[in-house]
């Protein structure tokens, strides 16, 4: 059952009220990504009253929905038309919304091969720090008019404005999907992945859990069949990928803090205290570790990556270089001059 409702005026009113009264706003949908970032003190702006799919035409490969729409509703609509969100956004909770998906910018196992959340954002409607509801981008695949404010919003954790509506590029589901499990150690898995990465093999997910390499192959019947034949291994239940995406594998239940390490593809095994789980063909590694944040960040920075603590913390995100932080502050100042949107969620200074 859908409960479409356009609450953009109410949201705009709440922002304008906050601007007049100089009240900070804590923007949230279902709060399913609350474990990311710094705690925010402020009046809650709940986007879930503004919900519903505004338009979806499968032959245009574009879906537009209000920010408070449940991600599950969007996925069900796409599924019914044989399509999908190729970036496989994690829900991390039963009520995950479209707005939260875009604001957090998290992508699932298919990300290295299909693209990230921001890659699929075509347009947005945003309430700005000047109390205006504005539209950027649109519903077309190619659009280079003006600055790309829509993609800037992806992953900005609500610090630059309130997303009210998003248009996404969507794609047909592949005709065939098979997952396999290959017994090999991490070192061997990484070198195999580097080799396969240079070949047209239809890999769409690759993870190593410490014991075996898990691969998902997607495409036409022919390419998937020949890849399965070539790679061998045991057939794997595709539920593995959902459990990985939603952090439901046994690995995630270990007691230590959870870190997300984002690394260049060609990074070898990384020696760090704790346990690791490889995702994104090695470009994303989950780490359960009690090591000091600076130890982890130092090790990851050395190889050109960065680390995020998946726990509400003052230092959740990797600190920025000084000039970069200054331009972040400038941008925040320009787009949210009164600093009312999620102040400090990303960094204390913005």
């Amino acid at each position: 059952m859908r409960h479409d409702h356009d609450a953009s005026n109410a949201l705009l009113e709440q922002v304008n009220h906050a601007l007049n009264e100089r009240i900070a706003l804590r923007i949230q949908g279902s709060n399913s990504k609350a474990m990311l970032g710094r705690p925010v003190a402020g009046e809650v702006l709940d986007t879930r009253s503004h919900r519903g799919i505004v338009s979806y035409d499968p032959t245009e490969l574009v879906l537009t929905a209000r920010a408070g729409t449940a991600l599950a509703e969007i996925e069900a609509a796409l599924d019914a038309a044989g399509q999908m969100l190729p970036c496989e956004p994690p829900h991390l909770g039963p009520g995950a919304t479209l707005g939260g998906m875009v604001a957090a910018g998290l992508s699932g196992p298919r990300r290295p091969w299909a693209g990230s959340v921001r890659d699929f954002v075509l347009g947005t409607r945003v309430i700005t720090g000047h109390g205006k509801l504005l539209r950027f981008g649109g519903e077309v695949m190619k659009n280079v008019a003006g600055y790309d404010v829509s993609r800037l919003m992806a992953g900005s954790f609500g610090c630059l404005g309130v997303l009210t509506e998003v248009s996404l590029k969507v794609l047909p589901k592949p005709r065939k999907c098979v997952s396999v499990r290959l017994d090999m150690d991490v070192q061997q898995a990484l070198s195999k992945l580097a080799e396969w990465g240079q070949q047209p093999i239809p890999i769409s997910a690759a993870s190593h859990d410490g014991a075996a390499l898990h691969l998902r192959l997607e495409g036409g019947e022919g390419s998937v069949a020949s890849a399965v034949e070539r790679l061998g291994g045991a057939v794997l239940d595709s539920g593995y990928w959902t459990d990985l995406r939603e952090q439901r594998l046994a690995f995630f239940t270990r007691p230590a803090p959870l870190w997300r390490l984002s690394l260049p593809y060609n990074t070898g095994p990384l020696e760090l205290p704790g346990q690791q789980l490889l995702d994104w063909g090695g470009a994303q590694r989950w780490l359960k570790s009690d090591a000091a944040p600076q130890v982890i960040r130092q090790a990851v920075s050395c190889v050109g990556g960065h680390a995020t603590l998946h726990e509400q913390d003052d230092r959740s995100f990797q600190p920025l270089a000084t000039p970069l932080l200054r331009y972040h502050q400038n941008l925040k100042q320009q787009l949210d001059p009164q600093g009312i949107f999620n102040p400090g969620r990303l960094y204390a200074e913005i």
Partner: protein
Amino acid sequence: MNILYDERVDGALPRVDKAALLSELFEALPDLEILHSQEDLRPYECDGLSAYRVVPMLVVLPERIEQVQALLKICHALQVPVVPRGAGTGLSGGALPLEQGILLVMARFNRILEVNHEGRFARVQPGVRNLAISQAAAPHGLYYAPDPSSQIACSIGGNVAENAGGVHCLKYGLTVHNLLKIEILTIDGQSMTLGSDALDAPGFDLLALFTGSEGMLGVVTEVTVKLLPKPQVARVLLASFDSVEKAGRAVGDIIAAGIIPGGLEMMDNLSIRATEDFIHAGYPVEAAAILLCELDGVEADVQDDCERVDAVLKAAGATHVRLARDEAERARFWAGRKNAFPAVGRISPDYYCMDGTIPRRELPQVLNGITELSEKYGLRVANVFHAGDGNMHPLILFDANQPGELERAEALGAQILELCVVLGGSITGEHGVGREKINQMCAQFNSDELTLFHAVKKTFDPQGLLNPGKNIPTLHRCAEFGSMHVHHGKLPFPELERF
């Protein structure tokens, strides 16, 4: 319509004493090549949009990034406008010089710094040509996906500035989808890394913001691009239709069948005839429209997809469908499409290339609209589309030697772009706004949206010294020249006086 910088509506530019600036630059940067005489400056008076020309005050041709940094610091201190330029192939006048500014030519930064096949990336200087990256990656079976038609000449720095596209965007994305990291310099000479060697970076996505920002926010000094494995095979189907509408509907049918072609191009009868005369690609000259559909990937899938698409095209009413027999015929089919612009150039003294995008379902409406406008203005229009992603390139045929024809062509072009906006599209899909579409920006965005763009600009360049006058119009320009952006029945800019 005059699109050259007009201080009255585009904002006052700082006064620069050319002699004093020149002596300052000679002293601070003795080994920097500077062009300053009229005859040396003349070749730089325009980019790929050659209808508009301005001789720059100075042209600088740095060879080391430190020279760029020192130059920017001087320009910032002395308040000198700077226009960055790559290979100068842009079609929207994004690198159109300023009489009162320095043209900063980045073309000499042409070294490929690293091709890493295991990491699937290439790190290159900004003046490296687009095609040169794919050529350097080819021995590893890899390539760089975005392929604008100027790829033999255009530079990767310019591609970043314009978020360049090409014929394979629907499947492989634009420039923004194929970058890992850029190094930039802001106008005050501050260097920064945007993006990272990993697939994401902490903080705001400034890499996405800078891509397509037309040299307004910073100067790109290094680019790290993603490389993809080359598809094993590519096959092309050529379908003929007796009506443009049927061809347009067939495009949607292919997508509805769950197939994303590597390329999906459409041409109308005027373009077909012009191209066939020129290239002899084997196109059916009687057809009202043709579709070129390229399917690429692993052999077995491509074979399968070809059969499916063939069936879809026939069901959609194609009068004839041909699969390119071999690589030579495939190359010939593409040669026709890739030479459509010069082919049209042979049947008309001049032509003006537009770059609007629309939701695909609006294709018949737009084509009918273009036909009506074409009759109204008395100028022929040839239509070439990247049909897969709704990016149209109507070519307006005119003769600049006939008094008034250029103005009519411009007015017709502006009407076509505004039609795209009305139907939910955009005034530019891949060529950029530059100077060319500065007035149409007023149709696509309202004054509050433009004000926010100016705020973004102020973040990185508060004095407006980098590429002034491009991409984002002032509210005064919109009030005077812009088309009306009618929002909820209200006229825009009520606060501004009308001239």
